[in-house]
C-alpha cells in the first residue's frame, strides 16, 4: 500500500445483526484522484460512506486518512480532519438561511475558535457563488428547488475545506442538463485540489468523471480499476443485468 495514499481502507467489515452489509473492503485513494463507486441498490455503498465518515461504527478493518487511523473518531472530528460528505437526500438545516447553512461548517469544521465575522461572510458568498446560489443566500432551504438543494448540499460539504469529498448520489433524480451542472461542479472542485469519491447510478456521469471505478455488489468489492475495463468485466455486467 502506498504511503502517500489519502485514504486507506483495509479489510473493512460491517454487520447489522446477522446481516453482513460489508465484507473485507479494501480501498486506496490517492490525492487528487477522481474515483467512482457504483453498485446495485443495497450493495452497501451508503453503508460504506457512513462507516468512512464515522456515522456508523464498523467492527472489522481499519480506515486511515492521511496516514492517521480514524478508529474511535466521531463524525465531526473526521470532518475537521478534512473528510467531508454530502448526503444522498439533501439534509439542509431547515431553520437557517442558505448562507447560514454554509456558515456552520466554516465556524465549526475549519476554524477551531471560529467566529462569525465579515471574513466568514465573504467566504460564504464565495462558496455560494461557486455553486451558483449567490442570489439565494437569504432564502430558507424549503424555498429551493431540488437541484438548488443539491448544490447547497455540495457547497456545505465544501465549506469545511475538505481534502476528500464523498459525493453520495448527488445527481439522483435530476434532469440531463442538471446532471451536467453538478458534474461540472465536481470536476471544478477536483481541479481545485479536492479528491472526490463519486457514488452514482447515472453511468454516463460516472464514466465521464472517474479516473478509476470501484464496483460494490452485495457488500463486497468485485472490481477496481480503469473505468472502461471495469465496465466490460463479466461479473459487473451480470450485477447490472436489467439496470
Amino acid at each position, binding site marked *: 500500500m502506498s504511503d502517500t495514499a489519502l485514504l486507506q481502507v483495509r479489510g473493512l467489515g460491517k454487520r447489522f445483526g446477522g446481516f453482513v452489509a460489508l465484507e473485507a473492503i479494501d480501498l486506496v485513494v490517492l490525492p487528487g484522484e477522481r474515483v467512482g463507486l457504483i453498485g446495485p441498490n443495497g450493495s452497501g455503498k451508503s453503508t460504506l460512506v457512513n462507516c468512512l465518515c464515522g*456515522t456508523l461504527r464498523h467492527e472489522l478493518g481499519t480506515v486511515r486518512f492521511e496516514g492517521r487511523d480514524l478508529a474511535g473518531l466521531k*463524525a465531526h472530528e473526521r*470532518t475537521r480532519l478534512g473528510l*467531508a460528505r454530502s448526503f444522498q437526500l439533501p439534509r439542509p438545516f431547515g431553520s437557517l438561511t442558505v448562507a447560514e447553512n454554509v456558515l456552520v*461548517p466554516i*465556524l*465549526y469544521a475549519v476554524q477551531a475558535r471560529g467566529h*462569525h465575522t465579515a471574513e466568514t461572510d465573504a467566504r460564504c458568498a464565495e462558496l455560494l457563488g461557486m455553486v451558483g446560489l449567490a442570489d439565494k443566500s437569504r432564502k430558507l432551504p424549503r424555498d429551493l428547488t431540488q437541484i438548488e438543494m443539491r448544490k447547497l448540499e455540495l457547497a456545505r460539504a465544501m465549506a*469545511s475545506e475538505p481534502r476528500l469529498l464523498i459525493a453520495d448520489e448527488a445527481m439522483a433524480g435530476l434532469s440531463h442538463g442538471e446532471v451536467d451542472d453538478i458534474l461540472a461542479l465536481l470536476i471544478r472542485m477536483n481541479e481545485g485540489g479536492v479528491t472526490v469519491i463519486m457514488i452514482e447510478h447515472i453511468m454516463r456521469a460516472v464514466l465521464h468523471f472517474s479516473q478509476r471505478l470501484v464496483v460494490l455488489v452485495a457488500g463486497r468489492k468485485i472490481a477496481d480499476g480503469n473505468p472502461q475495463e471495469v465496465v466490460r468485466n463479466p461479473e459487473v455486467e451480470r450485477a447490472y443485468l436489467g439496470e
Partner: protein
Amino acid sequence: MRTARFLPLILLVAALVFGVARAIDNSYVFFAGYVVLQYIVLAIAWNILGGYTGYVNFGTPAFLAIGAYASVALYKIVPLPIPLLMLIGGVLSGIVGLGTGYLTLRLRGAFFSIATLALSVVVQTLVTNWDFVGGSRGAYIIRPMAAPLIGGGYIDYLCLLMLLLVVLSVVIARAIEHSKLGYGFATIRDDEAAAEASGVPTLRLKLMATTLSGALMGMAGAPLPYYVTYLDPASGFSLTYAVNAIAMPLIGGTASWIGPILGAVILGTVQQLVTVTISSAANLLIVGLILVGFVIVAPNGIVGLVRGWRR
C-alpha cells in the same frame, strides 16, 4: 445589538419594573410577581435546551427542587445569604443536568426525555426519604423580617433577586442566539447527523445546553423555600412546574428568548385568573388543554404566528 449595549438597557428596564412595583404600595404585587418571574426563568431555561436544541426535558421539577432542597438543607446547618444559595443550587443542578445528559444524550432525543421524566420521580423519592430536610412531612423555613440592602418586606428582596436572575437568563439566552453556539444548537435541532457531518461537536453542545438549563433552574429554585416558608415534596415537585416550563415556551414561541417571556406572562396571568375565579384544579386542566391546543394548531407558538403573518 451587542450584549455590551443590551445589558444596561435590560437592567434599566428591570430597575423600572422594580421601582414601579415598589411605588404600588401593595405586597400582593410582589407575591404574585415572584411566581411570574420564577416561571420566566424556568421557561427561558427550559427553552435553552428544548427550544434551541430540540431535546425535551420533562424533569423541570427535579432541577428546581434540587436548588430548593439544597437551600433547605443548608438552612438547617448554617443560614447563608440567598445569592450564595442560588449559586450553590445552580452548581448542583448543573451537575445533575450534566450527569443525566452524559448518560442519555448519545441516544435519541426520546430516551433523554423519558429519562428526565423518571428523574423527577427519583429525585422526589430521594427527598421524601431524606428526613434531614423534612421527608414527606416537609420543612419549615423562617423568613427574615426585613429585606437586606433595600429595606422593606423580605418578599421584595426575593423578587429583586428573581428579577436579576431573569436579567441573567435573558442575557445568556440572547447571547447564545446570536453566537456560534446558537448556530450549533440550531443545527442539532434541525438535523443532528448533518450537524455532525458539518463539524459540529453535537454531544459536547448538548451537554452544555443541558448543564446550563439545569443550572438556571436550580438557581430559580434556591429562594423558593424562603418564599413559601413551608416546603414539602408534594408542592416542591408539583406537576405544575413541569407542564408550565414546557407550555410557556411552546405557547410563546421557542425560537427566541422573547417567546418564553411572552408565554410565561400570558399563561401565568391566565392561571392566576382561573385559580382565583374557578379553582386550582380547573386551572391545571385549562393549562393542559391550552398546551395541547397550541401544539396542534400553532406549533411555533405566538412568535411563530407573528412571523408567519409578517411574511
